[in-house]
């Protein structure tokens, strides 16, 4: 009877050498596991990136640094959990807070976001009163906000009741009773309508439910109600329909989107629907500013920053993902 092939001395040597070789490979892999193995499972098992929030965290006053931070946040969140370091924040505004909430909420349950509080007590108060902690968990609870709210809507609908509630929150904080403010109400409804009609772009008009945020904060010390409307859609300039010559001017650099925004506000750019009686939303908000009903109007859309009242229309070095309108009454 002959010996089985795999039990011969030659095969035994061969199998032993393969066994050792595989064992070496396994040990090498084991020693590198800290660097090379992808984290998996629950989001808290992922690695954490620490991001320092700008000292002046405000889109309306410090747009480039704040947009840069928000973009950095989004890009880090692709691979990492985020830890926000707010300790050095000394100035903060509700427009940036709303944008931060939008960015955090866009992550869903894929990542965890942790953070500390600013050292500045005024900033903590604005964070709390704006309604930020209704969207972000806090270990030590703070008193419920009475001066503001960040309302998140995932729909394409205009919400008149919500607009009324926001207006009443501000007037309650400022005057001690809910009052009507037709100016603020109009600006909110116009902003919601714009989102319905434009934020998803022409191609996806009927396909995508757009998420938008409308916020109010009553700045009691200044006696002002501060409203922010934020949609994370394609932005104004990707959704409007420009005439051919204007497209050429923009392409060759004779005009830019900042010039186009000025023209949109003046009502010189027709509606994307083609109907002459449409497209009056932004011009009507601008008219409220001209009439003095709105005290301040700031628009950030794609790479354009416009402090409309101050006549400051300029291009940013970085593009904001969506459209933000900020006004005060």
């Amino acid at each position, binding site marked *: 009877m002959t010996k089985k092939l795999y039990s011969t001395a030659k095969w035994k040597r061969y199998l032993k050498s393969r066994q050792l070789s595989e064992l070496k490979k396994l040990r090498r892999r084991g020693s590198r596991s800290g660097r090379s193995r992808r984290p998996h499972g629950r989001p808290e098992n992922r690695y954490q990136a620490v991001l320092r929030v700008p000292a002046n965290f405000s889109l309306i006053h410090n747009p480039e640094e704040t947009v840069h931070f928000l973009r950095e946040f989004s890009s880090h969140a692709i691979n990492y959990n985020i830890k926000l370091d707010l300790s050095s924040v000394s100035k903060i505004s509700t427009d940036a807070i709303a944008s931060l909430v939008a960015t955090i909420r866009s992550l869903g349950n894929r990542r965890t976001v942790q953070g500390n509080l600013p050292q500045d007590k005024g900033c903590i108060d604005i964070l709390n009163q704006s309604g930020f902690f209704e969207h972000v968990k806090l270990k030590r609870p703070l008193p419920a906000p009475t001066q503001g709210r960040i309302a998140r809507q995932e729909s394409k609908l205009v919400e008149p009741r919500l607009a*009324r509630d926001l207006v009443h929150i501000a007037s309650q904080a400022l005057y001690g009773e809910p009052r009507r403010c037709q100016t603020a*109400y109009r600006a909110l409804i116009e902003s919601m309508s714009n989102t319905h009609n434009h934020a998803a772009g022409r191609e996806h008009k009927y396909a995508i439910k757009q998420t938008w945020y409308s916020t109010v904060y009553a700045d009691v010390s200044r006696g002002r109600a501060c409203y922010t409307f934020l949609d994370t859609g394609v932005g104004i300039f990707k959704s409007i329909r420009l005439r051919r010559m204007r497209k050429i001017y923009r392409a060759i650099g004779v005009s830019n989107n900042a010039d186009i925004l000025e023209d949109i506000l003046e009502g010189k750019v027709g509606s994307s629907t083609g109907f002459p009686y*449409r497209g009056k939303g932004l011009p009507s908000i601008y008219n409220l500013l001209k009439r003095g009903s709105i005290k301040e109007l700031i628009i950030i859309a794609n790479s354009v920053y416009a402090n409309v009242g101050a006549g400051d229309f300029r291009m940013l070095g970085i593009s904001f993902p969506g459209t933000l309108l900020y006004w005060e009454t």
Partner: protein
Amino acid sequence: MAAHIGLCIAKEFSDTPGPRTREEGDFSGEQFLAEFLLPRYQEALSQGTHLAVDLDGTEGYATSFLEAAFGELARKYEPAEVLKVIVFKSDDEPYLIEEVTKYITEARKRR
């Protein structure tokens, strides 16, 4: 003509007027036109009276609501006739009368 027929938007329709079309959201200009403005306007026309539209008492109006209601009415009927029949009241925000009048006169304007 005496003002016999009245229409108070806040009391009869909604104190929170909304967007242009029903598809966009609640209390739209399209809904207001179909359910209130158009029937009352036709009633006023048939009786040979004015239609007094009271704009006061609401939270406010978006331009699209006003245009969809009054502009659209002026696309169905002659703008001059609409302006003759309707009488506006707006003590809260007097500029609204001028604005609505503009929507009516420009309703049929082409590009």
